[in-house]
């Protein structure tokens, strides 16, 4: 496909200031991009987020299940995607705990368990020190097998996870002692960076027991187009990239502030919004660049005649 043949000449070659802008040295663009990301980071700029329908749906899904419900959080990502997904995980864990839900952690990605462990330490035990292992939360850890893990959990959870991550038998942990399959959960959330992840949860967990539980998901920006077809029919909530995380953070911190550690909560549940600062400025820069490029082209055309 020939889309771009005549660009090499740029918009340069004399003419007005605007027309010359079209052929501007691209290093100025680099500089502008660098600054638009660096300055918000240095100044810790935070812009108010207006929660979109998807973030609101996710929030409502966790709100609407009865207090003290059993919730399964799957950490299906690794450090490479933590920039986008960790803020979601933090906010979701705080949200669930603030609602008094009992949380079961697990991971389809090998490093997901470490991400979950970190979240337990940084958020769950930090802001909800009364949460006791075994009765209020359980860490099942990572199991190899990708979607096969989900499939087996859907029909026979104890067969997939005979023990928790530390090797304790499930029967010795009151929270999961009687759990037979995924229908024992009121809500399942997959924080997902790709395969295996949210898509597999929809395909293999939801189809096994569509009415039993609510499914929500947090996703990176790159893989979201694969998940959109499932929202909202099979997936009641979907957080997309840093933006989704920031919006969800807003909703959670607005309703559930921390009484004794407000500053720490603002930091731990503010990462998404801090990361949205550079996003907003950089996106506006890109929009401005596109407008500028076209203005320059039109200015050059009207001056130089048809080319």
């Amino acid at each position, binding site marked *: 496909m020939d889309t771009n043949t005549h660009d090499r000449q740029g918009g340069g070659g004399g003419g007005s200031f605007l027309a010359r802008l079209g052929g501007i040295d691209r290093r100025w663009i680099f500089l502008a991009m660098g600054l638009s990301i660096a300055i918000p980071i240095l100044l810790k700029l935070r812009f108010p*987020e207006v929660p979109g329908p998807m973030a609101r749906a996710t929030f409502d899904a966790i709100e609407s299940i009865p207090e003290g419900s059993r919730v399964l959080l799957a950490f299906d990502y690794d450090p490479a995607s933590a920039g986008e997904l960790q803020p979601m995980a933090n906010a979701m864990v705080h949200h669930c705990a603030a609602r008094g839900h009992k949380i079961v952690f697990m991971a389809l990605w090998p490093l997901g368990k470490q991400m979950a462990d970190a979240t337990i330490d940084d958020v769950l035990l930090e802001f909800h020190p009364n949460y006791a292992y075994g009765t209020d939360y359980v860490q099942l850890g990572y199991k190899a097998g990708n979607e096969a893990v989900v499939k087996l959990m859907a029909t026979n959870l104890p067969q997939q996870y005979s023990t928790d991550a530390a090797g304790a038998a499930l029967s010795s942990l009151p929270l999961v002692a009687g759990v037979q399959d995924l229908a024992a959960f009121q809500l399942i959330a997959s924080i997902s960076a790709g395969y295996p992840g949210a898509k597999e949860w929809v395909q293999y967990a939801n189809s096994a027991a569509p009415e039993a539980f609510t499914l929500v998901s947090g996703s990176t920006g790159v893989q979201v*187009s694969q998940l959109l*077809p499932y929202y909202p029919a099979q997936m009641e909530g979907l957080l997309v990239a840093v933006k989704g995380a920031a919006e969800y953070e807003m909703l959670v911190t607005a309703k559930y502030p921390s009484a004794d550690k407000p500053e720490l909560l603002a930091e731990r549940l503010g990462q998404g919004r801090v990361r949205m600062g550079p996003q907003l400025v950089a996106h506006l820069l890109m929009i401005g660049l596109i407008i500028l*490029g076209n203005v320059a082209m039109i200015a050059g055309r009207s001056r130089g005649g048809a080319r």
Partner: protein
Amino acid sequence: MLQRTVPIAILSLSGLILMLAYFSPMTTSWGETVLEWFNILAAVAFVLGAGNLLAVNLEKISSRRPGWAYAGITLVSFFLMLGFGLLKVGAVPNPEHPDLHFAGSYDTAASPFGWTYEYVFSPLTATMFAMLAFYVASAAFRAFRAKNTESILLLGTAFVILLAQTAAGMFLTGWIPEDSMFAFLRLDWMKVAITEHIQTAGMRAITIGIALGVVATSLRLILGIDKSYLSRS
């Protein structure tokens, strides 16, 4: 014969067998076996790559070509890393077999290999990756010009998506009620509509086309019609 007919025969036969093997439960796993062989083959072929890396850089140094000192840096860092890794220098002993040096793990940050990975390899690759933020901006500036219908659609869509990605989208159109008949003017609505219906359709068709292309390319090779890989006629 050995140089021309045999390779074609090998290619066709191996291709055909693996095509059909998928359909029998007894032979389904052959594909995986072959891929495993390939991994071993690729590891053996590292000798070829390393030999070439050495040859290229040593030649630069010996003929004092411009930039020969950089070739030296490449070789030094190559040999250091290779030595650290192959000899498992400073490996953390395996708790179950502390006496076996080569059973230890060499990729924790406590060993030189792991240290170099963490503080040299990772930052370098991550920064190369991060450079894309700059190039995305310059590409958008240069290429998104409204020259014809096609380019207007390209840049218009990118424009809508970029706006909808940030709070700016909500700021501009968030006031339109979601259940009104003008809800389709909301940027977040447009973004979902574009990605869910048009982008999905486009990607589907591209994928279908690609699959057909893969079939035709594979068949051309298996049937011996495309022989471009054969040298020395």
